């Protein structure tokens, strides 16, 4: 389900709560990124954040129910990318999760929390709020602040 907003720099995409639906969102974000002039690197980072957030929502938030939808909007506001992910699952603030272990040897290494770590690392800011019966996560990222420009 794809709906273009009147504003050319904005995208709205609604997903069913199925992991297989994420690839179609990624394609849509790629198309939107092309239209609004974003680099392939930035589009990749936006898609990684969305994928990790939505996978969390589907596997945890919607784990007890087999239906529900997730609404994603993306907007390029003069170089500030704003992504909003909204679901109607039980209250869940992923920012409550602790930082993962990035140092220990392979035997002790755990995978939990890595997805949220990517979101924290790649976003300029991440906010969570519960509004009526919705979880709303807002990610902001400046077009000029991709990680690649800092480490390459």
């Amino acid at each position, binding site marked *: 389900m794809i709906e273009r907003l009147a504003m050319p720099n904005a995208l709205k995409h609604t997903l069913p709560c199925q*992991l*297989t639906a*994420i*690839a179609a969102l*990624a394609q849509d974000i790629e198309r939107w990124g092309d239209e609004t002039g974003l680099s392939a*690197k930035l589009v*990749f980072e936006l*898609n*990684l954040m969305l*994928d*990790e957030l939505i*996978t969390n929502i*589907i*596997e945890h938030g919607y784990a007890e129910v087999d239906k529900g939808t997730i609404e994603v909007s993306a907007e390029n506001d003069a170089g500030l990318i704003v992504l909003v992910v909204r679901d109607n699952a039980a209250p869940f603030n992923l920012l409550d999760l602790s930082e993962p272990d*990035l*140092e220990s*040897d*392979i*035997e002790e*290494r755990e*995978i939990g929390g*890595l*997805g949220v*770590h*990517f979101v924290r*690392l*790649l976003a300029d800011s991440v906010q969570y709020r519960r509004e009526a019966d919705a979880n709303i996560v807002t990610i902001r990222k400046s077009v000029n602040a991709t*990680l*690649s420009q800092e480490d390459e």
Partner: protein
Amino acid sequence: MTIHLEHRDSVAIFRPTGRLDSASSPELERMLTAELDAGTSRLVFDFADLDYISSAGLRVVLLAGKKLRTCQGKLALAGLRENVREVFSMSGFLALFAVAPNLEEALKSVA
């Protein structure tokens, strides 16, 4: 997402293509588990055709690393493209695994 599995000598080479995410990683995990259960102890992930990996994909790579460590096996990663490399870098995984520029070098490192 397609996952090619090939054997050279006694090395299993997994070559996933496209996206390795929460939707596709269970299939790689299933193939990997079958391979390890069959006694394979030398393994290469060739990521030359991989466009995208998320933490769900990393989880399977870590699982392989843990299991092979237990049985004194060997694991190497090959052909990481820029986006995939960035995800490995952000996770601190580049320090955990042997990373080779291409398949031939990876095969040497598990020989």
